[in-house]
């Protein structure tokens, strides 16, 4: 038998049938649902008189719209309230398990899934959210899908899809001190571009990836979509197994043993061939900061804002000029001289316990700069919040001048009240720096959690390694 990539194995393990033209029908093991992309899918089921194919494959939680303060008084935005209540009603009507807004297990759906052991190695996972790619960190094949496909998976437990090409990104060697998973993935996107992964499933490999914790691996896979790839995956190893073991929905006893033995195969075979291979030297990566309105517009904290006049591609140069204008930045400005107005620590990219620990380590014994309007810490889930409080991280943040909030997507996409005002500049641990993403005319710089905390303390970007 020929050598296979991890993607080959995951694909073949879930293939119900293939058409003559190569279109596959892929069985879906786990389906995560949130309030924004599901109401029209449930409505579609209802109108067609269909029922969910396998209701226990589905798990729901509201995250995008929920307020991060004063939850006891409910949702004040009437439109958001209807959407969250619609999810509650749909889950009751169709018999779907939901971690509702006031359940301690509620949180950002991509934090909740792995935390509960609902995502296991070797699974196929979908959600009506592009950051579903997060779950590839567990050796699962995980895609973001649109609402029509949410309805399709609810009704059939399958997805119609053609196989993607395969890419392996190897991050070789050892990361420098103070350089994190976020810096790895931003550096990769800077290297291959936001469309560099289009048409591919990317497997992340190499010593620096192996050395990451599960939280770090989830950060890397989470932003695979920002490189345009359909999914990101990482082979199963002892770190994966250690993370999954003992979680509420993880198998136990004999089933655990059987699962373990099956998961041993979830890696790329020696000699397997990828359509594209990329190598990145871990030691060359410094803490990253985006300067523009696309995640590929990224440089190291030691660099300066790039100059469009030096870009030879005229379309790209025009895009850079537009980005600099939107961001209110001048070419040649040192990144470390850019002041920030707000700091946001959280999201499905960096809202896990390890992220909060990294930020708290910087915040401990220091104060948020007086020039800042706001510094927010939004845990990824109720359980992350509880864990952080048990470790005293909330006290550290609050004493430093950060606000300690309830879990949700919050300012990552600003669907709730947590938004930038026009012209405000934010150091954010989220995943997208698009125009208007965090609020109309708001300016987003993507960074890792320690870099965000450091920017909050200094009032401008600083190399976290100097602290």
């Amino acid at each position, binding site marked *: 038998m020929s050598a296979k990539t991890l993607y080959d194995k995951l694909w073949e393990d879930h293939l119900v049938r293939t058409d003559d033209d190569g*279109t596959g029908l892929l069985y879906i093991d786990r389906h995560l649902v949130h309030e924004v992309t599901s*109401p029209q899918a449930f409505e579609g089921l209802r109108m067609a008189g269909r029922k969910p194919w396998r209701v226990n494959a589905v798990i729901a939680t509201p995250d995008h719209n929920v307020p991060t303060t004063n939850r006891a008084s409910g949702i004040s935005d009437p439109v958001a309230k209807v959407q969250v209540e*619609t999810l509650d009603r749909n889950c009751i009507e169709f018999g779907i398990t939901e971690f509702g807004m006031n359940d301690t297990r509620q949180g950002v759906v991509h934090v909740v899934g792995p935390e509960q052991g609902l995502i296991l190695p070797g699974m196929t996972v979908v959600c009506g959210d592009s950051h579903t790619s997060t779950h590839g960190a567990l050796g699962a094949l995980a895609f973001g899908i649109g609402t*029509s496909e949410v309805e399709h998976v609810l*009704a059939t437990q*399958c997805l119609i899809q053609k196989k993607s090409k395969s890419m392996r990104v190897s991050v070789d060697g050892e990361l420098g001190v103070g350089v994190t998973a976020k810096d790895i993935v931003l550096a990769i996107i800077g290297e291959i571009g936001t469309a560099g992964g289009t048409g591919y499933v990317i497997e992340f490999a190499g010593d620096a990836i192996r050395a990451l914790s599960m939280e770090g691996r989830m950060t890397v896979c989470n932003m695979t979509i920002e490189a345009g790839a359909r999914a990101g995956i990482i082979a199963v190893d002892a770190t994966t197994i250690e993370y999954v073991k003992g979680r509420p929905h993880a198998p136990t006893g004999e089933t655990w043993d*059987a699962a373990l033995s*099956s998961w041993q195969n979830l890696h790329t075979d020696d000699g397997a061939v990828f359509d594209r291979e990329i190598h990145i030297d871990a030691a060359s990566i410094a803490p990253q900061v985006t300067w523009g309105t696309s995640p590929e517009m990224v440089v190291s904290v030691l660099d300066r804002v790039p100059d469009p006049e030096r870009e030879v591609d005229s379309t790209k140069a025009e895009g850079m000029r*537009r980005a600099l204008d939107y961001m209110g930045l001048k070419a040649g400005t040192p990144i470390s001289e850019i002041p920030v107005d707000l700091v946001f620590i959280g999201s499905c990219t960096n809202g896990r316990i390890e992220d909060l620990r990294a930020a708290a380590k910087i915040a401990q014994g220091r104060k948020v700069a007086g020039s800042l309007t706001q510094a927010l810490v939004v845990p990824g889930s109720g359980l992350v919040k509880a864990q952080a409080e048990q470790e005293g991280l909330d006290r550290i943040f609050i004493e430093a001048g950060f606000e300690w909030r309830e879990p949700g997507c919050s300012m990552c996409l600003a669907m709730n009240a947590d938004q930038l005002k026009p012209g405000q500049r934010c150091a954010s641990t989220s995943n997208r720096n698009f125009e208007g993403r965090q609020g109309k005319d708001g300016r987003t710089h993507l960074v890792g959690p320690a870099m965000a905390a450091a920017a909050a303390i200094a009032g401008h970007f600083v190399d976290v390694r100097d602290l």
Partner: protein
Amino acid sequence: MEKFIKFSGIVAPLDRSNVDTDAIIPKQFLKSIKRSGFGPNLFDEWRYLDQGEPDQDCAGRPLNPAFVLNDNRYHKASILLTRANFGCGSSREHAPWALADYGFRVIIAPSFADIFFNNCFKNGILPIVLDSKTVDRLFGLAGRDQPLELTVDLDSQKLFTAAGDTIPFDVDPFRKHCLLQGLDDIGLTLQYSKEIRAFEDQRKVTAPWVF
């Protein structure tokens, strides 16, 4: 779904690459639980000078005169011409819903983001990938005083200009079939219910921890 067979329309040139779905339909409009009514808020932040809110009447809002859809030449456009990596970012199907609701049936670009590309086909929108040179040429034609009109024939996979140019394009055979027939994917997949059940029964044996 409405069948897509042959279609003629005016081309609006949106000369930007990496247009993301946050730009196509900003987040505040995602709070709707309906599939319809997103057209007035398509490209909201670029199209209007004020901040748009859900359920607002857009008729009296100040327009951004520099935005292409506010140019008189393109008022009736139903074909969008744009640059690489169109539809990147969020998976929100509200983006193709907004484009379709506005009246766009065809989008032409050198490349599209994966999830957006899939979502288009589910909503009767045909995304067409053409090489950058052809896209450049179309931008030249679309920018003239007299707007460019194209005829799109899905069956023969060709675009026709009024001047007699013919531009062939590729489309996945299964997706073409679904668009031409206006087929519902779910109905198609449920024809294989027995195979899905059999697969599932087998998986319950090989991977019981999934169930």
